[in-house]
């Protein structure tokens, strides 16, 4: 039959996590066959993302796979898609639940839950170390104001706050490796004892590990380090024993599931059974490395 054109709009290509997601979509498309994917990134800019979707509508795509930059701000674009009768599936991040718009399906992980998982892991490790949950934890948060940064931090702190003997020191490192390193260097100067570090993405924790290794004050092995996103590089460090854990949100599985749902709807008119498919974020450690989606 005729080739199907599907639009993929996602926040930014500068983060490897999204390029895995994009790749997964493209692989799935190749596997299903007869599909053109138009993938456009929005340079992390909400109004650009809306423009991109408008442009996709003008171009006449048949369906849209959307990774929203912000849960709320993208709603006008979804409204426009609804108006143009173009089905949309959201991936990774869900638009606000009570919004008066139609979304065919949402496939995603829960950043807040990921943050909670990271916190639980750290609490467990601290308990192993001291016999009780106590110590000093550094939290490297993402770009201030960005959705994932807010959610991951919220989940993380929700759990950690339950343990009064754990001190959390937070600072932003903008989801960047160089900032992660720099901020960690400053923490190393100002903090006599560091027991654990949580980076709200792997980039930041990788930078922090560089700083710890170079410090001479702390040994990376003695510090509990947890990242987020399960990038190949992080997995490799887990294998080597430098990094303790990372949170896997399965971008490939999310993307290919969502894409399959969308194509099925377009080709066969079949709506998905569930309108929300959540994939449980998983803590990846040395013990369950094989459960990680990406290889290294």
């Amino acid at each position, binding site marked *: 039959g005729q080739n199907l054109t599907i639009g993929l709009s996602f926040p930014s290509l500068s983060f490897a996590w999204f390029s895995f997601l994009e790749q997964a979509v493209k692989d799935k498309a190749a596997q299903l066959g007869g599909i053109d994917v138009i993938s*456009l990134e929005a340079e992390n800019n909400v109004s650009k993302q*809306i423009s991109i979707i408008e*442009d996709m509508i003008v*171009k006449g795509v048949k369906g849209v796979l959307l990774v929203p930059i*912000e849960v709320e*701000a993208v*709603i*006008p674009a979804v409204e426009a898609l609804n108006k143009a009768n173009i089905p949309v599936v959201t991936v990774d991040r869900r638009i606000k639940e009570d919004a008066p718009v139609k979304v065919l399906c949402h496939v995603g992980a829960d950043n807040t839950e990921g943050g909670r998982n990271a916190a639980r892991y750290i609490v467990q490790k601290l308990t192993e170390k001291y016999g009780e949950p106590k110590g000093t934890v550094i939290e490297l948060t993402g770009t201030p*104001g960005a959705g994932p940064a807010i959610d991951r931090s919220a989940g993380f702190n929700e759990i950690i706050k339950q343990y009064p003997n754990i001190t959390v020191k937070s600072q932003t490192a903008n989801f960047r490796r160089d900032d992660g390193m720099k901020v960690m260097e400053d923490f190393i100067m100002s903090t006599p004892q560091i027991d654990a570090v949580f980076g709200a993405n792997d980039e930041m924790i990788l930078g922090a590990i560089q700083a710890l290794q170079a410090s001479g004050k702390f040994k990376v092995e003695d510090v509990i380090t947890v990242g987020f996103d399960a990038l190949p590089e992080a997995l490799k460090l887990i294998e080597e024993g430098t990094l303790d854990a990372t949170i896997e949100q399965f971008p490939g599985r999310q993307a290919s599931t969502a894409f399959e749902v969308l194509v099925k709807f377009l080709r066969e008119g079949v709506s998905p059974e569930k309108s929300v498919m959540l994939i449980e974020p998983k803590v990846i450690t040395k013990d369950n490395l094989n459960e990680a989606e990406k290889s290294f």
Partner: protein
Amino acid sequence: MPVLSEENVPLVQRFFVFWDKVGILLAFLVVCVIFGMLNPVFFNPLNILNVIRQVSIIGVIAVGMTFVILLGGIDLSVGSVVAFAGIIAAGFQAKWGGNLFLSVVIPLLIGGGIGFMNGFVSTKGQLHPFIVTLGSMSIFRGATLLVAQGKPISGMSPAFRFIGAGMVGPIPFPVILFIGCVIVAGMVLKRTVFGRYIYAIGGNEEAALLSGIMVERYKIAAFTILGFLSGLSALILTSRLNSGELVAGQGYELDVIASVIIGGTSLMGGEGGVYGTLIGALLIGVVSNGLNLLGVQPYWQMIVKGLIVILAVLLDKLKRRFRTV
């Protein structure tokens, strides 16, 4: 001095004199025609309105930036002002009582106020506006996060949503606002004393001062106008997004300044105008829209965008080579 009569001017040169007036418009049309040939959807009236609406958020600010750059100044804080004024607008809509009047007027006043401060500090303190506005860029990004406590604010009333999403007949309301700003600013620059003083100050500040022009006052005024228009842009954006976003406006400063410069206004001040800015903003919007319509890969989009911007201004400047032939 022997003045050449019309007939004596070689045809080529007459063409370039013409070009001089049309300037970037020609380059813009060339780009449009190419996109139109590659994808006919491009010239669909809906798409054209679509592009202008997309552009209006940057464009409204670019109108104000034209004033500031004509004066030889610059403002990097516009993006942060958009975020700050936007969050305040959203706050008045969704948190602090939902009064339509307040949620429109206060953000505009705040924008104007920040612009005033930028102008005041840079003129009175004799600091280059680059560094002052770099400072306020950081300050108001922080203030935005502080006011919003790190979370976006959403839920605008239908009346407020009209600003960014409403239609007047077939025309989106933001387009009307944007084109209105261009026309008013064009008139101000060409026909009012204020406008002429802007050119005078940008062309030679000392001469303007010695001619009895209150240079500082006009500089502050230009920054205030820019701040005010950034506030307007914040209203359009917040209303369109139905939400006050914390990362709103990030990176706008570069798009805005690029629009003004592509439009032929000199960064040294004193030369240019707002119609050029209109074309400059449209060019940036059209390139992005055209590449999206063609489905060009993101990596390549960045590369092609950069090249088109350089080539367009190069085409515009080629005329200089010929003008003095």
